[in-house]
């Protein structure tokens, strides 16, 4: 069987999954107002502490410091921490690296010094560099499917492991913010001047965020007593518009129904939505959830804690959600007070207790793409084989 074997998150809220989960449970947000001389307006965002990242990276890998970009360092440190915490050898020929990113080292286009290795702008090169750091010689897989990349990467991991060529998949999600990305979202008028309020009636747009996050999936015949499995995953397209979500939530609804064919709705502890806090996205998700008859199931969004971390979001939010599932906890949505009347959802404002075994992670992105994953918490008493 294929199980979730380890994970890590590097974000404004800390450099380990535990630190990040604890911070979210305590109601902490990494979002703050930032000013950059190169960017026209101040912006709300959740940024990785560069100094802390560099220090920690240097403690682990002194010799490589000068050759890696910050993005590469964050990805390497995240994979390294996930592997060492779970005690897994990711240099093994049985291990496959899968990278989820939307823009990789795109900030290099904006540097006055254009002497960098031009391959660094290529996403496949970033993936190769990370794998090579761990002396892993297998050709890595790179997925760039806008905001749903992190969920696609996990689905790919399960497919590859089922295929039998590999026993371990190291799934890394990363994106950092630069003028390129921030100016783009500003030009789309998608950014909120305030800390974002997912699903709130007063929501006024998204905040961006930075993260590197890693999940390690593994084939095993001896799973630990309590473990998470990715039971089902689905990717769909609205075939409707390149940047606007479907008014009927067609693709998102289809992804939800695809993953829930064999699961009783009452066994779902919660749905972790994309919940970007843009008027359109959250409305579309509310329609999808309502159409799938899940409107009584608790729904949350983590964007108020981390902002939208782009290619890392699907990995990061799956990690926080499965930690909550294991912890029998439903997390509230940061900054949510009152929802819309038209498509009412069950959005907790305080931490709740649930022992139900399933949770859903859903996302949608530019290009009309949608994805949904169904996770299960498996608990055995260890005596039955």
């Amino acid at each position: 069987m294929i199980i979730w074997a380890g994970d890590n998150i590097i974000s404004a809220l800390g450099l380990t999954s535990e630190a990040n989960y604890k911070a979210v449970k305590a109601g902490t947000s990494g979002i703050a107002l930032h000013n950059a001389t190169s960017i026209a307006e101040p912006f709300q965002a959740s940024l990785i502490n560069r100094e802390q990242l560099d220090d920690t990276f240097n403690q682990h890998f002194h010799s490589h410091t000068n050759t890696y970009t910050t993005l590469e360092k964050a990805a390497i440190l995240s994979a390294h921490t996930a592997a060492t915490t779970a005690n897994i050898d990711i240099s093994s020929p049985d291990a496959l690296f899968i990278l989820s990113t939307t823009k990789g080292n795109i900030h290099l286009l904006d540097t006055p010094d254009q002497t960098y290795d031009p391959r660094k702008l290529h996403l496949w090169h970033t993936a190769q560099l990370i794998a090579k750091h761990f002396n892993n010689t297998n050709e890595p897989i790179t997925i760039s499917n806008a905001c749903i990349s992190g969920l696609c990467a996990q689905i790919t991991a399960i497919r590859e492991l089922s295929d039998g060529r590999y026993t371990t998949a190291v799934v890394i999600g990363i994106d950092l913010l630069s003028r390129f990305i921030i100016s783009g979202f500003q030009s789309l008028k998608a950014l909120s001047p305030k800390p974002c309020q997912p699903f709130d009636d007063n929501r006024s747009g998204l905040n961006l965020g930075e993260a590197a996050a890693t999940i390690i999936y593994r084939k095993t015949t001896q799973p630990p007593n309590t473990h998470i499995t990715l039971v089902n995953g689905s990717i769909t397209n609205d075939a409707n518009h390149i940047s606007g979500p479907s008014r009927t939530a067609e693709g998102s609804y289809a992804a939800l129904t695809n993953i829930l064919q064999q699961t009783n709705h009452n066994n779902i502890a919660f749905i972790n939505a994309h919940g970007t806090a843009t008027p359109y996205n959250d409305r579309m998700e509310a329609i999808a959830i309502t159409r799938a008859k899940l409107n009584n199931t608790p729904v949350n969004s983590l964007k108020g804690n981390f902002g939208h971390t782009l290619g890392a979001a699907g990995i990061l939010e799956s990690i926080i959600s499965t930690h909550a599932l294991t912890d029998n906890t439903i997390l509230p949505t940061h900054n949510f007070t009152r929802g819309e009347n038209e498509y009412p959802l069950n959005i907790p404002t305080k931490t709740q207790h649930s022992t139900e075994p399933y949770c859903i992670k859903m996302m949608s992105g530019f290009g009309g793409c949608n994805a949904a994953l169904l996770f299960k918490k498996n608990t055995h008493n260890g005596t039955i084989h």
Partner: protein
Amino acid sequence: MELYINQYSYISPKHTHPTVTTAGEGLTPLYRAIGIDYPKFFKMDNLAKLGFLAAELLLQQNKRNLNTRKDIATICFNRSSSLDTDRLYQTTINPENNYPSPSLFVYTLPNILTAEIAIRNKFTGETSTYITPSLNPETIVRTVRQTLNNTNGNTAITGWTEYADDTHEAFMMLINKQHNSNTTTPFTPEQVNKLIIHLRKQTNNK
């Protein structure tokens, strides 16, 4: 599971398959020569135009047969992601010219190309974009096979769509569980490799 290549198309600056006579070089003359009326084409970036036209060439003969479109997957591979448009967008945010273009920014995602194909053909199945250092038949075959296996799908549109450094190449295939009456080409790395070598040779001979 047996899979077949039931149709393929190819576009490079010098050569297309099937052969199309165009009035000039580039993607716009090719669009005009194909004889379709789809004004959205002119809003697309170069990568999306290239993939869109390759899909049009691929599906022209098959349009009517693709009536179970729900499960049709669109899976694209390329080397340079959207870097061509990324560079263009970057020029709109340079300090001397700070007017970021939202319409250009949307195309700084490589998967918009799969969306354009899905929208045009109403394909609501899986859309995915993988970035690989070069056209790798083995990776393409494995990925498509895994996708159809895991989604119980019958059909995939897949291939290579690279637009970079003022050159371009698109190679697309229509993959089915059933073979049609004209061809029984199995969808294997060897066959894909043979096809691409043949198509590139035809280009070089021009």
